[in-house]
């Protein structure tokens, strides 16, 4: 696992080096700050995506959750004039509740995670659009929430707070995943659910908890994203973001078969994805090719990883 993370780190450094040679602006404080901000925003929910993937599941709903919880958040602040901290709690709890519903449907009604969260993706997007009559939700002119803005979009010594939040969440989740009893259960369930059950692990609760964590992190991300964009058009806000999360997790070594992955890997995966995006901008590649570059790099990475593993196994067999 460590070897994989190291490989990813080397890849990030090499890509970074090449880009900074081709365009020195890559290392400018402004660019680094902006990239760090995006890493923070996208990394937060990538961790949730990774945890669900470790159980052998998938969460496709987060992009739509951003739209729904985002418009709710802005409506609470603007329409209902609710204090920002209360609105924040409501929205994060909203994410938790959505995750709990997914967990219930998957573990109690034994529905497939792909189907449950795909339906979530459709339903939440639809509700978000209906909620605003397909209009854009935004703050009123002159409205400001200094503390909230400082917490979400502010910077300390040039480091964006979204990035700091991401690092904090990653550290906590790293502890949970790699050192706690729950983390061990999560890997056990992902690798062999039946053996986990025969060992007295309440596997349904473990799986449901993974979706709850993913939902909660999606709620938190919804706030950061809303405060980043400042206005939300629910038809497009957060579109495809679930795939960014999944891509970061997979790039970071999470196997879709379950039971494999690490927080460090997911963090590195999230970093690499944003550097690739940045690269498209800095190197003058048409931004329409954005997705193609991302897809291409992930594909190359997965193929290379598989070939290396095969090579290593063949060498071990001899």
């Amino acid at each position, binding site marked *: 696992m460590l070897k994989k993370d190291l490989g990813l780190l080397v890849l990030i450094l090499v890509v970074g080096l090449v880009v900074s040679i081709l365009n020195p602006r890559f290392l400018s404080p402004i660019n680094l700050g902006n990239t760090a901000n995006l890493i923070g925003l996208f990394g937060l929910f990538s961790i949730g995506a990774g945890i669900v993937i470790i159980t052998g599941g998938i969460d496709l709903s987060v992009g739509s959750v951003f739209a729904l919880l985002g418009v709710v958040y802005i409506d609470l602040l603007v329409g209902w004039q609710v204090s920002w901290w209360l609105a924040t709690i409501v929205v994060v709890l909203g994410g938790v509740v959505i995750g709990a519903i997914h967990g219930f449907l998957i573990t109690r009604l034994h529905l497939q995670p792909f189907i449950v969260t795909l339906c979530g993706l459709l339903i939440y997007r639809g509700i978000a659009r209906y909620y605003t009559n397909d209009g854009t939700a935004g703050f009123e002119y002159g409205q400001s929430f200094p503390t909230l803005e400082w917490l979400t979009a502010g910077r300390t010594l040039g480091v964006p707070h979204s990035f700091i939040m991401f690092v904090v969440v990653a550290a906590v989740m790293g*502890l*949970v995943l790699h*050192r*706690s*009893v*729950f983390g*061990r*259960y999560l*890997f*056990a369930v992902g*690798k*062999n659910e*039946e*053996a*986990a*059950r*025969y*060992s*007295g*692990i*309440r596997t349904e609760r473990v799986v449901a908890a993974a979706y709850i964590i993913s939902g909660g992190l999606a709620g938190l991300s919804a706030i950061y994203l809303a405060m980043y964009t400042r206005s939300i058009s629910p038809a497009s806000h957060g579109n495809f973001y679930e795939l960014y999360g999944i891509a970061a997790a997979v790039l970071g070594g999470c196997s879709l078969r379950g*039971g494999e992955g690490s927080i460090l890997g997911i963090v590195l995966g999230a970093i690499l994805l944003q550097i690739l995006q940045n690269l498209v901008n800095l190197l003058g590649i048409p931004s329409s090719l954005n997705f193609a570059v991302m897809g291409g790099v992930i594909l190359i990475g997965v193929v290379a990883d598989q070939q290396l593993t095969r090579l290593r196994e063949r060498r071990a067999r*001899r």
Partner: protein
Amino acid sequence: MTPPLLELASVSKTYPGVKALDRVDLRVERGEVLALIGENGAGKSTLMKILGGVVEPSEGAIRIDGSPHRALTVAGSMAAGIAFVHQELNLFDNLDVAANVMIGREPVFAGPFKLIDRAALAAKVTPLLQRLGVDFDADTPVARLSLAQRQLVEIAKALSLEARIVIMDEPTSSLTASETARLLKVIAELRAGGVAVIFISHRLVEVEHCADRVVVLRDGAVVGELERAEIDHDAMIRMMIGRDLKSLHVPAERAPGGAVLEIAGFRTPAHAEHPLDLTLRTGEILGMAGLVGAGRTELARAIFGIDRPLGGALSLDGRSIAIASPRDAIDHGIFLVPEDRKRSGLVLDFSVTENVSLANLKAFAAGLIVRRRAERRNADERRAALDIRTASVDTLVGTLSGGNQQKVVLAKWLSMTPRVVIFDEPTRGIDVGSKSEIYKLMRSLADAGVAVLMISSDMEEVVGVSDRIVVMREGRIAGFLERSEFSEENVMRLAVGLRDLQQAEAVSC
């Protein structure tokens, strides 16, 4: 004189640091049943991989019909008429029998569309099934077949390939007595048809029954060969382990005591119409015999909380308990060593340490965080106590031998305080040495006051190890046997019912 069908001359296989095979000579004649026995790790699997063309020998020659080969390829092995009936069956259970037998070689029509000619398919497969005397049809879905029937499908597949050598790796390990009898009969028929059979088994009784010749492997070398007249149980065991094995039964230190677990009116989902009553006593190994499908595993699963029973009551030490999940059972000290250790007993990609602590992880945690040093220390202690042979407790369990894997399952439970331990087929696919260690362990558990229930389809084991035997038949308890009444015949009589027994005897080979 015609050359032997297959001959290995001085074949060796060296892995880095290990000599898996050491100048093995082996000869197989047409129409011969050759039994290959040896403890796990003796080199049987490596030998089979060489014959299957999966592994290349480091030295030596392979001769088929007298023509030498340096090494076989998978295709070459198939072309030479070598077919495998694997321990883990390779069938598609979403397809029917005929499709499985002819997979990859389906008769087709309609030119480029390559539609499957179902009539021709059935016409090819049906005679093979008739030859084997099976009780299912070419269009029966494999999902509906029992393990024994699936094995016959594999054999039909081998026949359809016109196999001249059929290699069976532990074919009877999951079969009941009557199914085994039928398989042995099929082997006899294959032999009569001129097919050579290489039969790998830990069940020496069967080897005694059907082998023409026995080759014994130990530590990668052939240590002995027995001709038909010389084949006998003790001789085989002596050669396999290089020492005499003491009788299986270790007498209990004291007479069985009071009831530990009382099962009253228990109804399992599989056999809802038959309520079961059973008492497990302290200090006793209760053997549970019966045919596969008699409801033994279902009872164990229900007691352990995997399946919810439809009715009935459990009481532990006289107090009524409710078990809704394995967690509840474990909290009461009721443990299950499951039948399929790779699927249900272990997380193969976890280390020995992680598997040993999995059921009891909270005991090794400070708050929510796992104390890995304490966890490791416990694993090291268990490893020493159970003599788990592994380089380190950090080794992945999937790389250990069957016997050592089973010891890891046991180590998991022995890290806690057991009251009742249910062993479901505890020594299936395990070498003789580890077997006797597991028996010793069961006895020491019983002597320590634990109630032991041992579900087993291995007659030798049931009769040899138990203090008392309960036999199940078709979901109900057919009867109990005390030690003085123990005999394979008495167990069989209860397991199949008297009338069926005569039929079962008629088919043994």
